[in-house]
C-alpha cells in the first residue's frame, strides 16, 4: 500500500516544529548532562524559543491554512505566537536561577515549558475545534506538571492537583460544547460552522447556543473569568513563582486567542445574544478580581486576583468586538505579558531557598534595600494600575475605546471604577517599599544575569508601549485584517 505524505505546508508550522523538536531534544539529552551541566537544557530551551521567534517573524503578513484547513496561520495567530514566545523566553531566563536556588534544576522543566508553548501555539492557530482542544490539552497537561514541580512542597502539590482536577472538569465542558456544535453543524471546522449558522434558517438553534455556552465555560476557566476563577488564587500561590508568571501570561493569552477566534469569527451572527452574557462576566470578573485583591496579604495571591481582573478588562474588548476589539485585546495581552512577568520577576528576586518571602510585609523598605528593584517594581505596578505613560494605560485606553465605540459606555464606567480600586492595592506595595523601613534582618538581594535581562526587557517594553506605542499598535491592528 502506498503511503502518501499528507499535504502539509511545513513553512507554516515551522515555529511549532522547532519548539516541539527542541522539547523532545531536551527530554532526550537531559539524562546525558552531568549534574553541574543541567543548565544546558535551559540554554537549549531559550535557543529554541529564539529560533522559533525569528522563524515566526518570517510568517508575518503571510496567510495560509494547512492540515486541510484545520490550521490557520494568519497575522492574528502570528501575533499571538509572538506573545507566547516572548513570554516563554522571559520565563526560561528567570527560571534558570530560580531552579538552581530551589535545587530542582531538572531538564524536564524546560521541556514542559516548550511543550506548553507548543500547545499555546496550536490554540492560536487552530481553525478547527479539535485542534483547539488538542492545543488546550497539550498546554494544560504540561502546566499541571509544572505547577507541581516543587514536589517536596505541600503547597505546590496541592496547587497542581487542584489545577488538574478543575482543569479536567473544564475540559469536559469544552468537549461537550464541541460535541453539541458538531451535532448541530456537522463539522468542527470554524469556517464551516459560521457558514452553517449563517446559512441555515434554524442555524442558531438550541444546540449551537448550548455549545457556545459550554465553550464559553471551557475557555472561561482557562482565562480565569468569573465564575470559573476559583482555581486561580491557590494555583498561583502554590506553584513555583516562575510558573505562576508563566500561567498568568501565556495560557491566559492563549485562552483568549481561541476564545476570540471562535466567538468573533464563528459566532458573530449570534453576537447580540452572547454579548450580554459576556458583558456580565466581564463586569463580574473585573469587580470580583479587584475587590478581593484588596484583602490579600500575600503578593502572589494579590497578583493572582489582579490577573483575574485583567482578564475582565480584556473581556471588555470582546464585548466591544469589531476590528478595534480584537486589536485592542491583542495589544492588551502583549502589554500584560510584559508587565506581569516583570512584576513576578521582582517577586522571584526577593525569595530565598525555602523562603519565598511573598508576604506583603517583606516588601517593606525595598526602596532602601534595593532602589533599582523598587523603582522597576513601581513601574510594573503603575502599569498594572493603568497610569500613563505606561503600557498598561495605553492598553486599557485602547480596550475601553473599543467598548465605547459600540456604545457600551456603562461597562467602561465599571471598568474605570475598577481601575480606581486596583490603584489602591497596587500603590499599597509602593507605599510599603518606599515609605516603610525594612523588617528585621534583611539580606542583600543579588540578581542573576537572566533575571536582570528579563527586568530590562520587560521595563523597556512597558515604557515603550506606553510612550511610543505606534509600532506595536500598528502590528496589533494589522492582525485583524485576516479575520474581517
Amino acid at each position: 500500500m502506498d503511503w502518501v505524505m499528507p499535504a502539509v505546508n511545513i513553512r507554516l508550522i515551522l515555529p511549532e516544529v522547532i519548539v516541539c523538536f527542541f522539547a523532545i531534544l531536551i527530554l532526550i539529552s537531559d539524562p546525558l548532562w552531568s549534574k553541574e551541566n543541567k543548565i544546558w537544557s535551559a540554554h537549549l530551551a531559550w535557543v529554541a524559543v529564539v529560533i522559533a521567534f525569528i522563524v515566526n517573524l518570517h510568517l508575518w503578513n503571510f496567510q495560509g491554512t494547512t492540515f486541510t484547513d484545520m490550521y490557520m496561520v494568519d497575522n492574528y495567530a502570528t501575533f499571538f505566537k509572538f506573545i507566547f514566545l516572548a513570554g516563554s523566553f522571559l520565563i526560561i531566563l528567570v527560571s534558570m536561577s530560580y531552579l538552581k536556588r530551589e535545587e530542582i534544576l531538572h531538564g524536564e522543566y524546560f521541556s514542559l515549558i516548550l511543550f506548553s508553548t507548543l500547545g499555546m501555539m496550536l490554540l492560536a492557530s487552530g481553525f478547527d475545534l479539535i485542534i483547539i482542544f488538542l492545543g488546550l490539552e497539550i498546554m494544560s497537561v504540561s502546566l499541571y506538571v509544572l505547577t507541581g514541580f516543587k514536589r517536596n512542597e505541600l503547597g505546590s502539590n496541592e496547587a497542581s492537583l487542584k489545577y488538574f482536577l478543575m482543569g479536567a472538569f473544564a475540559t469536559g465542558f469544552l468537549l461537550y460544547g464541541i460535541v453539541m456544535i458538531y451535532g448541530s453543524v456537522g463539522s468542527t471546522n470554524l469556517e464551516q460552522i459560521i457558514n452553517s449558522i449563517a446559512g441555515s434558517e434554524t442555524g442558531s438553534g438550541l444546540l449551537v447556543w448550548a455549545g457556545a455556552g459550554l465553550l464559553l465555560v471551557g475557555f472561561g476557566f482557562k482565562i480565569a473569568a468569573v465564575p470559573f476563577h476559583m482555581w486561580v488564587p491557590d494555583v498561583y500561590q502554590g506553584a513555583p513563582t516562575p510558573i505562576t508568571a508563566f500561567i498568568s501570561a501565556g495560557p491566559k493569552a492563549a485562552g483568549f486567542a481561541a476564545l476570540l477566534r471562535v466567538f468573533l469569527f464563528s459566532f458573530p451572527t449570534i453576537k447580540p445574544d452572547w454579548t450580554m452574557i459576556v458583558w456580565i462576566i466581564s463586569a463580574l470578573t473585573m469587580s470580583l478580581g479587584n475587590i478581593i485583591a484588596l484583602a490579600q496579604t500575600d503578593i502572589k495571591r494579590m497578583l493572582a486576583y489582579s490577573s483575574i481582573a485583567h482578564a475582565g478588562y480584556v473581556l471588555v474588548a470582546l464585548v466591544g468586538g469589531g476590528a478595534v476589539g480584537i486589536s485592542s485585546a491583542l495589544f492588551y495581552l502583549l502589554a500584560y505579558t510584559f508587565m506581569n512577568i516583570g512584576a513576578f520577576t521582582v517577586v522571584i528576586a526577593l525569595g530565598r531557598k525555602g523562603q519565598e518571602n511573598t508576604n506583603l510585609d517583606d516588601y517593606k523598605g525595598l526602596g532602601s534595600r534595593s532602589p533599582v528593584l523598587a523603582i522597576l517594581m513601581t513601574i510594573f505596578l503603575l502599569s498594572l494600575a493603568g497610569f500613563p505613560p505606561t503600557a498598561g494605560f495605553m492598553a486599557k485606553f485602547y480596550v475601553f475605546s473599543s467598548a465605547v465605540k459600540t456604545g457600551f459606555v456603562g461597562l467602561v464606567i465599571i471598568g474605570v471604577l475598577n481601575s480606581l480600586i486596583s490603584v489602591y492595592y497596587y500603590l499599597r506595595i509602593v507605599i510599603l517599599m518606599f515609605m516603610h523601613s525594612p523588617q528585621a534582618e534583611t539580606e542583600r538581594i543579588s540578581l542573576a544575569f537572566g533575571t536582570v535581562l528579563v527586568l530590562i526587557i520587560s521595563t523597556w517594553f512597558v515604557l515603550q508601549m506606553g510612550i511610543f506605542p505606534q509600532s506595536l499598535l500598528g502590528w496589533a491592528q494589522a492582525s485583524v485584517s485576516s479575520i474581517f
Partner: protein
Amino acid sequence: MQSSILTILTFFPLVGILILLLVNKNKHGSIKIIAFITSLLIAVLSLFIYFRFVPDATGMQFSINKTWIGSLGISYHLGIDGISLFLVLLTTFLTPLAILSSWSAITDKVKGYYISMLFLETGMIGVFVSLDLFLFYVFWELMLIPMYFLIGIWGGPRRIYATVKFVLFTMTGSLLMLVAILVLYFMNHAFSGTYTFNLMEINKLPIPLGAQFWLFFAFALAFAIKVPMFPFHTWLPDAHVEAPTAGSVILAGVLLKMGTYGFLRFCLPLFPNAFIDYTWLFSVLAIIGIVYGAIVSIRQVDIKSLVAFSSVSHLGFVMLGLFALNIQGVEGGIIQMINHGISTGALFLIVGMIYERRHTRLIEDFGGVSKKMPVFAAFFMIVVLSSIGLPGTNGFVGEFTILLGTFKSNVAYAVIGALGIILAAVYMLWMYQRTMFGEITRPENEKLTDLNLREKAVLIPLIVAIFWIGIYPTQFFTRIEPTVKSLIEDARTKYEKNKLLDQSLKADYPQMEKTVLID
C-alpha cells in the same frame, strides 16, 4: 509654523533628572544646585516666551502639532494662549522657589526628592500647554505620581493616609473624565468622519444637549475635585498639611489651578450649553466654598491647615468669577488664580520657615515672634494682607474684578461672596496677631533666628510680584483679555447654535446618539 519652544519648556526638567541620576546620592550639595539651576533655566525660558507673546492675538501661540499615535488620531499638540500663559509662568516661577526653600528642609533621600520635583514640573507645564485631549490626560495623570511620592515619603505623620486619599480622590474624577474623552472621540468621528483627540477639532463639534449634560459633568467632576469645590474638598486639608513645605507650595500654588483651568479650557468651549445652564449650581457651590472655607479657617489651630482651608475659600472666589461668565469675572478669576498661587505659595513657605525653626505649627506655640524675627514678620504681614485683598496688593485686583463681574451677573452672589473677604480678614489677622504680636509667651521663641539670605531670596520675588500685580496689573490684563473675550463670545455663539442644531443632529447623525448609549 511649528515652534519647539514649548516642547523644550515641558521636557527640560527631564534633562535635569537625567543629570541628577548620574550624581551620587550622597552629594546633597550638588544635587540641590543642579535641581535649582534646572528650574531656574526653565523660568528664564518661560520669561522668554512671555516677552515673545503677542498680546492682541487670540488663538494659540507657539503651537506645535505633530502626529504621535497616528492610527488612533492622537497628536502631540501644544500651544499657549492668554489663559495658560500666566499659569505656565506661575509654575515655572514657583518651582525654583519651592526647590530653593527645600534646601534645608529635606535631609533624607534627597536625590529622589529633587527628581520628583522636576518630574512634577514636567507634568504641570504639560497640563497647561496640551491641546490634545489624550496628551492632556496623560500629563494630568502623570502629575499624580511624583506628588504621591512627595507627600508619601517626605510628608508629615499622617502622610500615607493623606497621599492615598489624594490619589484616589483625584483619580476618581479623572477616570470618569477619561470615559468622557472616549465618548467625545467617537462622537466626533460620527460627526466628522475623522478620528482625532485634537482639542481644536473637537471644539468644532456640535454636541447634542442631552449628551452635553453627562459629558460636562464627567469633566466637571474631575476638575471640581481638583479645585477643590465643596463638597469634594475633603482631600485638601489632609494633603496640604501632611505634604512637605515645597509640596504644599506646589500643590496649592499650581495643582489647584489645574481644576479651574480645566473648566475654562475644556468645559466652556466643549459644552457651552451645559456650562451656561448650570452656572447657578457652580456659583452656589463656589459661594458655599467661600463662606464655609473661611468659617472653618477661623477655627483652625494649626497654621498650615488654616492656610489650607483658606485655599478652599480663595478658590471659591475664583470659581465665582469664572462662572459669572463675563469679561470681568473670567479675567478676575484668571488673575486671582495667579494671585492665589503667589500669596498662598508664600504663606506655605512662611509656615515652612517657622516650622523648620520650632517644629510645630500650632498657633498657641507662638506669640510675639515679630520681636525676634522682624524681617520675617514684615514679609508675613505683606503676604497676609495680599491674601486678605488689601488694595495695593495683588489680592485686591483679583477680588475686586471678580466681584465686579459677579455683581453684573447676580447681585446676591456678589454680596455673599464679599462676605468672604471680611471673613478672610478675620481669620488671617487674628492668626497673625496671635502668632506675631503681643508678648513672647513661650520661652522657646526667645531663641528664634530671623531669615537667612536664602530664605529672603525665596520670599522676595513673591513680595515683588504681590506689589507688581497689585499696583500695575495692566500688562497682565492686556494679555488675558483677548483670549477671554473670544472664549466667552465663542461660547455664547455656540450656545445658540447648539440649541438650534440639537434637533437636526439627532436626525442627521444618528451615530452620535449611539455612542452615549448607557446600558
